[in-house]
């Protein structure tokens, strides 16, 4: 028994060094060497300022930008407090919140479901192509751009399924909006 306790303590300490320090440091070293940009979070810098990460969604609510999905991360898109709403399908709070979002987004026909539902992480960087196309007429009007130009921009930003098979088609909202700004400087 006493021998087993000694072994357990020594074993724990030695494997902590191997698994808790050696292993993550080795992964970090190789990652930095091969995939530096990815390891740091695919950060986007514009004019010397950090404007976000290509993988992390940002809130967009004004008419001039494509809107992201509702978020339950902190006060909304707080990337230090990721979270879903965790509201049940039968929750009154969910139905009320969805109705409020529908009132904001409504622009013709029924609103694509992802645009009025909160994501799992609260940081979803994407909307569906349906949700992006749904907003084209509003954005075009707010920016006095031809609808066709904005539509083409959206289509250029659609990421297809990986290898044509995995996941779902999607549009990265931050990248799309940055491209919008690059196209037509803020008036």
């Amino acid at each position: 028994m006493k021998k087993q306790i000694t072994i357990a303590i020594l074993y724990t300490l030695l494997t902590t060094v191997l698994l808790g320090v050696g292993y993550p440091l080795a992964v970090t070293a190789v990652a930095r060497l091969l995939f530096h940009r990815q390891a740091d979070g695919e950060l986007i810098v514009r004019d010397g300022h950090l404007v976000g990460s290509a993988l992390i969604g940002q809130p967009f609510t004004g008419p001039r930008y494509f809107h992201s999905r509702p978020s339950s991360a902190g006060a909304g898109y707080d990337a230090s407090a990721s979270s879903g709403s965790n509201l049940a399908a039968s929750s009154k709070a969910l139905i009320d919140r969805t109705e409020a979002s529908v009132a904001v987004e409504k622009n013709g026909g029924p609103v694509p479901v992802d645009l009025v539902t909160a994501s799992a992480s609260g940081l979803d960087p994407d909307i569906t192509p349906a949700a992006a196309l749904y907003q084209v007429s509003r954005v075009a009007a707010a920016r006095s751009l031809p609808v066709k130009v904005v539509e083409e921009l959206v289509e250029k930003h659609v990421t297809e399924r990986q290898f044509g098979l995995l996941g779902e088609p999607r549009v990265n909202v931050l990248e799309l909006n940055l491209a919008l700004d690059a196209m037509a400087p803020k008036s």
Partner: protein
Amino acid sequence: MSLNGWLQILLFIALVLLLAQPVGSYMTQVFERRRTWLDGVCGPVERLLYRLTGIDAEYEMRWTEYAVAMLIFSAVTLVLTYLVERLQGMLPLNTQHLPGVPADVALNTAISFTTNTNWQSYVPETTMSYLTQMVGLATHNFWSAAVGLALAIAFVRGIARRESRTLGNFWVDLTRGTLWVLLPISFVLAIALVSQGVVQNFRPYDTATLVEPQRAAGTGGQSSAVTTQTIAQGPVASQEAIKMLGTNGGGFFNANSAHPFENPTPLTNFIEMLAIFLLPAGLTVTLGQMVGSPKHGRAVLAAMTILFAVGVTACYWAESQPNPLMHQVAQGHSEQQSGGNMEGKEVRFGVANSALFATVTTDASCGAVNAMHDSFTPLGGLVPMVNILLGEIVFGGVGAGLYGMLVFVVISVFIAGLMVGRTPEYLGKKIESYDVQMSMLYLLIFPLVILGFAAVSVMMPSTGLSVLANKGPHGLSEILYAYASATGNNGSAFAGSNWNTHWYNDSIGVAMFIGRFLMIVPMLAIAGNLARKKIVPASAGTFPVTTPLFTLLLVGVIVVVGALTFFPAISLGPVLEHLLLHAGQTF
């Protein structure tokens, strides 16, 4: 539901079955201490570890010694994690200057990670320093998975050996599982994950300037400007890899595998799901090889695959349905959206990959999530709950899934024996009353803890019910799911409720503890007893455990035991919620 969704699911099943054979054969080599191609690297580390700790690698342990060594090791690692959490304020790699973790959260977390549960009642981004994540938590992802592997191998030896008093050496099994299996595969997985965008760094949290500044509602009707976004970072990929491979499931971030830094692309999602099933599926092959009946291993694998396919089909169907109470919302499937129930799901995964992930993570005892189970449709959420309540034996946790399944195999063989009025045999071993008693003990502890604690919680309005995020039958589902997840050492949650209270931290801690250790002891007792027995030659009255008939009987026993035990509770939770939701009732 879409053709593409089904193709992804079928591809996943095909790859799991394809990888089981090579992975299982490799594990047989590793645990039978035969030559492998990694000996040149791992051999010297193994010998050094034995020399420094004083382990006698040739010593064979009885089941009681094996259990005691396992319990002592688990206790020591638990204490270490508790201390690291409490003292993190004074330790390095604390870029956000986080204080020590409060005592009840620290204890709950230490138990949670020791038992391979990875239940998390805290928000990692604002609670755990990088050092705590690496040294206190990621280490447990290796240890608890290696312990599970060792126990499964010990159980298999119990079946395979004849007239033997011993089951192997715990320390040797632990070491070989870690060095030959978990560490190298994790390393490769981690690098693959980084290449897709899973972060791996020690940066302080970054601050980005928002492209469009926002107004946030503040207190007293005042609104304040939000102009920046704080982006949490960390050594995520290294932890993500072993979190999935070891079926641990504890997220580096609060949103777990839904967080874009943990799971940025459909490919990482696919890899993470495969990593969950890789070792549990492989272990069925290891079982077949070590007991000298590869066909038996395949029969068990077939039973698991059937239960998995039924679960994922039900979940995918349910999640593809529109919410009947949402109006003016386009919820159908089209070329431009996956449609269905998108609350609590990420666009890049859509409904198919969220349903698949939810089924995989609860079939195994992983508990990582890429979508919020709490926001699933009532019947969609029922699938992960039932998976856990069946005992997580469909592939199951690393090791724990196999020995849980083998207990059901013992019961199935026993029932088959009763039907023909003969003493049941399992691979030449007579199954006697002691084995059946221990199996029943194993099976009964589980519902006793879940239903017992759930019943107590429901009867305490202030401590038990006030924390719930959702009212009505869904509230009961949240409590049931919490104790099922804890006792089953899963760790996923209907996560909306505030489980970070004294009552839930403590009772869930006890449930996790019992669910792991109290169930291991009867399991090892069966193994020790089986190892002692003689082999009787098969006769015409022997029920073969290699046939499709056996597979179906096993599936039947699992479903009947699970249904008889939990049907009343489930009716009052998800089933009732489904009926009321479709009658237009909200809570």
